[in-house]
């Protein structure tokens, strides 16, 4: 949920809005904001599944330490989305979903 108006910080202004692709769906994001913030603003909190048990995970610490928010960004896996800035046209994928070769490997 985007906070457009704020009693202290005022209205969101001078933003550069770009499109990014998350699991094949195009969403609108503020350029430079963390990928996790953009996905959260679009109403989704789940960012990955655990490899063995396929449990959902999302942002916990927000400062790049807990690594619970990692996703595959432009082909690079395990990118911490809470500290990685949005760039126009980024392609982002959820990791560890069933059918993901790596996840299948870990289940063995």
């Amino acid at each position, binding site marked *: *949920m985007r*906070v*457009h108006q*704020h009693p202290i910080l005022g209205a969101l202004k001078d933003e550069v809005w770009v499109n990014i692709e998350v699991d094949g769906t195009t969403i609108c994001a503020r350029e430079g904001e963390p990928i996790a*913030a953009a996905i*959260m603003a679009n109403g989704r909190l789940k960012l990955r599944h655990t490899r063995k048990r396929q449990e*959902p995970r*999302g942002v916990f610490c*927000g400062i790049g330490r807990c690594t619970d928010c990692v996703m595959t960004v432009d082909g690079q896996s395990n990118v911490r989305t809470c500290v990685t800035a949005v760039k126009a046209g980024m392609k982002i994928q959820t990791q560890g979903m069933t059918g993901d070769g790596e996840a299948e490997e870990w289940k063995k």
Partner: protein
Amino acid sequence: MEKVEILVVGAGPAGLSAAMEAAKLGAQVRVVDENQKPGGQLFKQIHKFFGSKDHLAGTRGYEIGSALLKNTVEMGAKIDLNTVVYGIYPDRQVGIITADKSHQLLQAEKIILATGASENVLAFPGCTLPGIMSAGAVQTMVNIHRVLPASNVLMIGSGNVGLIVSYQILQAGGHVRALVEAAPQIGGYGVHAAKISRAGVPILTRYTIKCAYGTDQVEGATIIAVDDSFKPIGGTEREFSVGCIAIATGLTPLAELASLCGCTFTYVPRLGGMLPIHSEDMETTVPGIYVAGDITGVEEASTAMEEGRLAGIAAAAALGHVSAEKANLMKAQVWSRINTLRTGKFGQYRQEAKGKIMNERRALIVN
């Protein structure tokens, strides 16, 4: 190998203050920070600070951050962002990964570690569900990135972080269904608690979270009352439908680099756990390695900035940029402000714990 007089690790309130003071006295200062932006957690603090005029009371955190950053740069300190320190070797050789992902070894004459702290996790059934976040992460999302994780939030922990972030969720248009505190009394300042109480947020002391549930993300939580020994009391469960649970159960100093340097630590639970012992000059037990801010024990931005100033002045003086006499005078002024900050109901235990840490350092040096 590139040489630097003073290397500051961390561009938050403590690190920037240290850099500003040292650069002002003529030292060559380089600040490195792993984040994209400087300021640490100052820029998400949209509330007005407390204290006296000397402590910038009445000024909002992000305004303090902007001024501090501007002054630090004006004094000539160089700030390198997206730069990670991965190791500190004997004789203060520092390994860094720069913003362009290349490797560099620096030779520093003095190092000031101002790495801050990270928030504690809380274990309960369902605690890994998406939407269960540290309160600081919620605060960053709301105030910096302008995103509310969900419209209904349950806050766990009534320290200042829990109280302030609850209010800021309300300011952003969210709802805090309740604030839960296991202790019999509220942990943070009464004035913050009063603000959220007036806004209608129930503060439930002697309650803890029993479990959270949901499929793809958190959908609700069960809380339960606890007795005097924090044991859950069956039959007192209450349900809340929330899409976000914020965890404000304290912070732990990020002291890995001090540990790598071989600094002696002490255990002070009320300041966050294992802390590097330091002197009145903020110097650790390893000569030339200084610490400032939350790494020395979790307090507030105001004390972090003062500790940073002490470390900056002491390091610059040790390098001969200012006479010992003048440095002592400057440090005495800072100490008088710190002592004012560490008074009252909330400051007293911090004053005592800090005194203990500095006594331990003295005992080690004497022996």
